[in-house]
Structure formats: structure tokens, C-alpha cells
């Protein structure tokens, strides 16, 4: 871990649940190999060693929700040659971006008795709204295989091979009968980016969009289908407003459902 010349990797956390950085520790079979191939220079959840930047690769989990983090993300960007955001919080603002439609002052007062002590921004925003990002890894949580692919690709100097097609293809590949067609279960799979492996439809439930929008999703067609299946206006709005609510495609879809 100390030998010179290995790329220095840093892992940073903003507002999040810790699950995406845990994905690295959950790569039980590969962890020691990864630790051998790179120098883990900064990863507070896993090590008390904190080496100063600059870093070759920075992984950022979490969304920007405080003044402090809004400043810190610029420092992080300056320290990292390649900056990768991991997970729905970092790439789309996360579930906590639901505050973006609400009165966040009222929300803080709802949760804390002395809201004056709580410093938080009105909005929860993805890292890319603050600084340029080199690659975004989607998912709530990310898929650890995709994380390993991403790190391997960077070490090899190639582009990560991460799909941008929909969850539907994953269902076809694993022979899952379409829950929407066969059972009439509302499913966000047609507009959601692949990456999870199609786990929800495989359990007979609809996709709830935790990997965020696929490339060029047809959200209007899906919203119309939901309506035809008897979903209420609120149910359609909530379907788009969850873990990736602030991604522009789902944000637009939610607003269309609200006003259209």
C-alpha cells in the first residue's frame, strides 16, 4: 500500500447513507487485490491513514446539502485528477432532494427542536451542478461490479464499459417475464438505466427507478401507460420523485405529471 508509483485513490463523502462507499468494502473477493493495485490515500470510513492530495482518482459519494460541502467539493475537485461521482446522491441529489420541492426551513423545524443550530441548504444537488465530473456511476446503491469495472478501466487508461440502456434489457437477458405486461404491475424499468441486474421484476415487483434515467427515456409514454393502468396523479408524481428525483429527466417527468 505504501509503494511509490501506484495511483492514489481518495474516497469522499457528502450527504449520503454510506452505502456506495461500502460497496467497495463489499467487494470481499477483490478488496485486497484493489488495495494492492492502488494506494488508498484517503478513505475515512476504512482507514485512519489520511494522506494529502493531490489524488489520481477521487470517488465522491453524497449530494451537496450544506454551505460547507458546497465549498469542500471545489477543494476536492482541485485535488483529484479524475473525479468520479458514485451513487444516486452524488449523481442526482438522492432521496434528500425531495426537499427541493418543499419548504426546507419547515422540514428542518419538523425534525429538529432548535432549527437555528442546523446549517443546511434549501436544495440537495448533485456534484456535477457544482464542479466538472469525469464520470458518473449511477445507482442507489451503485453496483459493486460496475465500481470495479470503473476503477479497472481507469487503471488501464480506457473508458469504463457501463451500460446506458434500460432495465428492460436486463429482464430479457435473465428471462424475467415482464411484470407490467403479464401482471399489470407499474414498473419504471422502461425508463430506468440498467445496472442493478433487473432484481425487482425478478421478484415480481416493479422497478422503482433507483438507477435513475436511462439515456433518452420516454417518460411521457410511460406516464401515459401508468395512467391507463389506473395509477393516480399523485402515484405517478411519486414514481418519478424518489431516489433520483432531481435528475433532469425524472424532474421533468414529475413536473409534467403534476401540471399536465
Amino acid at each position, binding site marked *: 500500500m505504501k509503494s511509490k508509483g501506484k495511483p492514489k485513490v481518495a474516497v469522499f463523502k457528502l450527504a449520503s447513507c454510506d452505502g456506495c462507499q461500502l460497496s467497495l468494502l463489499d467487494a*470481499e473477493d477483490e478488496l485486497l487485490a484493489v488495495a494492492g493495485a492502488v494506494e488508498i490515500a484517503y478513505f475515512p470510513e476504512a482507514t485512519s491513514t489520511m494522506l494529502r492530495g493531490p489524488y489520481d482518482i477521487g470517488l465522491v459519494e453524497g449530494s451537496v446539502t450544506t454551505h460547507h460541502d458546497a465549498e469542500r467539493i471545489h477543494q476536492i475537485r482541485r485535488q483529484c485528477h479524475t473525479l468520479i461521482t458514485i451513487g444516486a446522491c452524488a449523481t442526482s441529489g438522492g432521496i434528500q432532494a425531495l426537499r427541493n420541492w418543499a419548504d426546507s426551513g419547515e422540514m428542518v423545524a419538523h425534525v429538529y427542536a432548535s432549527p437555528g443550530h442546523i446549517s443546511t441548504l434549501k436544495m440537495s444537488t448533485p456534484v456535477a451542478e457544482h464542479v466538472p465530473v469525469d464520470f458518473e456511476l449511477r445507482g442507489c446503491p451503485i453496483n459493486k461490479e460496475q465500481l470495479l469495472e470503473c476503477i479497472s478501466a481507469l487503471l488501464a487508461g480506457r473508458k469504463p464499459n457501463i451500460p446506458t440502456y434500460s432495465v428492460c434489457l436486463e429482464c430479457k437477458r435473465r428471462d424475467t417475464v415482464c411484470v407490467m405486461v403479464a401482471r399489470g404491475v407499474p414498473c419504471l424499468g422502461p425508463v430506468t438505466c440498467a445496472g442493478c441486474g433487473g*432484481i425487482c421484476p425478478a421478484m*415480481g415487483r416493479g422497478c422503482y427507478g433507483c438507477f435513475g434515467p436511462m439515456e433518452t427515456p420516454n417518460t411521457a409514454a410511460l406516464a401515459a401507460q401508468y395512467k391507463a393502468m389506473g395509477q393516480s396523479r399523485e402515484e405517478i408524481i411519486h414514481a418519478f420523485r424518489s431516489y433520483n428525483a432531481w435528475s433532469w429527466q425524472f424532474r421533468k417527468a414529475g413536473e409534467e405529471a403534476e401540471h399536465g
Partner: protein
Amino acid sequence: MNKVRTIKVDMLTRVEGEGSVYVRFRGDKVAEVKLKIFEPPRLFEAFLRGRHFREVPDIVARICGICPVAYQMSAVHALESILGVHPPPAVRALRRLLYCGEWIESHALHVYLLHAPDFLGYPDALTMAHHHGPAVKAGLALKKTGNQLVIALGGREIHPVGARVGGFYRMPASNELAQLLPALREARELALGMVELVRTLEFPAFERDYEFVALRHPAEYAMNEGRVVSSQGIDVAPELYGEHFFEKHIGYSNALHSGIKGRGSYLVGPLARFNLNFDRLPAYVQQLARESGVEPPCRNPFKSIIVRAIETLVAVEEATRIIEEYEPPPEDPMRLGGQEPAPRAGVGHACTEAPRGILYHRYELDAHGLVVSARIVPPTAQNQKGIEEDLWGVAEQSANLNEERLRLLCEQSIRNYDPCISCATHFLRLDVRRS
């Protein structure tokens, strides 16, 4: 003599989430201790309002990537109590199996990757692996087995998708679960090795007279069900949690402090469970615990690492038993949870044993099944005051150590609690108080 000296850790490491610690001495006496949590608030309790109950288990899982199962379990039990749902025995068994998976995964993570390096003098498990390679590999293998149980029932280890209000979206076939038995047999050996490893560690001599709080079940080592009991006589159903425990917002922390009304701090987690439910452990595990240096009442918080190892063994054995006895229901596995329960207005409560201690949820639903209010009290918030009191005692008792060693000791005593700061921050209160 009255020289002011401060010990500061600006960024706690090997904990889940962001916090710092500050200890100020005046002479040899500790004058102030602050465990600050600066993890940004995420306001879950606020944005849960208006969401349908079917969405709640998935939403609250996002509070914590380390213990999402705990959030799902407390949520489904609280919501089912409102909706009048009583899941069949097979569902009950699989929920316990799911929890076993999370206990194994979380305890192995904490013992090997986060806490053992303190005792053995390393900055992290990866460095520790240079000298203790087999131990670190054993820890990773155990953690993987725990994760595989969660994956078998939930599709993935973090934020699994199988649990729902009423049961599971899909019940596994018995041969799917049976495939896990070889790994569990190996895990049993690894867990015994884990006990062997931790019992030989060196433990700082420190004890405190805690009030322990845990769930207690009539027959089992409690995970999903039981009464909330304490070592000083509390014995109530989870519905009455609010009558005995309070939460207070402390200015320097984004997490709320908990206490017992009329008394003060208390301790939840492995040590509390062990002390209160020792008689629910199999006789040979009790014997193993005694031989390993822990027996109730164990009041040395540093020995919680031994109890985590013991609980890992218990969870491995429970998982094995549940899988061996599992008979999937004859119906369509995807229909077992039945139709979604009909909405009903009401208030429901539940406590379950997260790896770090009891996790209390309370929900109010309206007649359409939408959340009117939610209150979530995570274990780390409950332990926060006790952690500060430990720091107070540990620091004072070791005031003669040099700065660096004292700082390390303070960090180690915080890690005794496996604090999940991400969890602690997102919690809220139900009674809105606006000044």
C-alpha cells in the same frame, strides 16, 4: 496544574458517517466532552409525509447503507401493526434469516475492518492484512456469507428489495436457500475463529454502571420482536417507548441525544442484548462466552468486540437452522404476501434489534395509507450521550498518557459502539416544536 489541554479528533475514522470529538482537560480533570456529528441532515422524517406505506420500507432503507435491513424490518412491523396484518410463520422465519444476514455482515465489518485494527495497532484492516492476512481474509469471508443471505432474500446486499409490508415480494424456493448451507458451515468455523481472535486482545480496564436496554423475547435471542426491557426494570411493549425515553436536540450535533426519563443515558447494542438475554443463548454459547472473558453483567464497553463475535456465531447458527427447517408455502411464491393490505388510518410502533441496538419507528397513516407523521430513533442517537460519558471516564482515567495515545484511546472507545453516524443524523422527532 490547572493547565488546559485539549484532545481533538477532527475527523473520526473507521466509523460510518462524519463526526469529530473534542475533550478538554483542566489539569487532570476532564472539563468538557463533545461528540460532534456534522454529517449533513437529510430530513427523512419530513419527506416521508405524504408517501404511501408501500414505499416506506424502501425509503427508510436509504437512511443507512450498513443496516438497511434494520430500517426495513422496523418499518414493516410498525406499518403492519396499523394495517392489522399478521404474516405467516414462513415470513416470520425469513425475516429473522434476513436479520441474521445483516448481523453477520455488519459485525464482521466492524470487528475485522473497523475495530480490530485499534486493538492490534494498525491504521486499517488493509495494513493489518500484511501481518494478519488469514484473519482479515476470514473476516471478509464471513462478511460475504452474511451478504449472501441478504442477497438471497433481497436481491442485493445494500438496500435489498425483497421485504414488503405483509411479507416478501417473492419467497425463495427451499433449494435456493439450501445452496447457502456449505458457506454457513464454513462461516461457523470462521465465527469460532473470530471468538478465538478477539478473546486474546488486550482490553483497557474500564467499567461503568450502565442502564442496558434491549428487546426481550419469550424464547429467542431477540431480533424482530419482543418487549423493550432495561437492566433497571423497564419492561414495556414498543408502543410505550415514547413514555420512557426522550430525545433532545443538542446544539453542537446534528443528531438528537436520547435518554431515559428521570434518569439519563442508557446503552443499546450487543453488550445490552448480551447482558439482558444471556439466558436465551444456547448453553454451549453461554459456556463459550464465559471462557472468552464475558459474562453478564459485562460493563466493560471495550469487550463489546467479544460479544459481537459471539453474536456472529449465534446468527450463523440461527441462519443454518432456519434454512434447514424452511418449507416454502405452497402458493405462488410471488403472491405470498397476498394482495397489498388495505389502507387503514392509525398509529403503529415497532422496535427491532439493528446490529448497533434497538431501532424504534413510529408511523401515523391516514385512511388512504399515506404517512401523516414518522418518527425514527436509531441506535447511535440513543448511545450518543453514553459515548460522551465513556469518553469522560476513559480520558480522565488515562490523563497521564501522551496526546497521541490518549487520542487513539478516545477513538477506540467511540468505536466500541460501532457508531453509525449516518443513521443518527437523519432522525427526527414527531412532536413538532417551533419556538
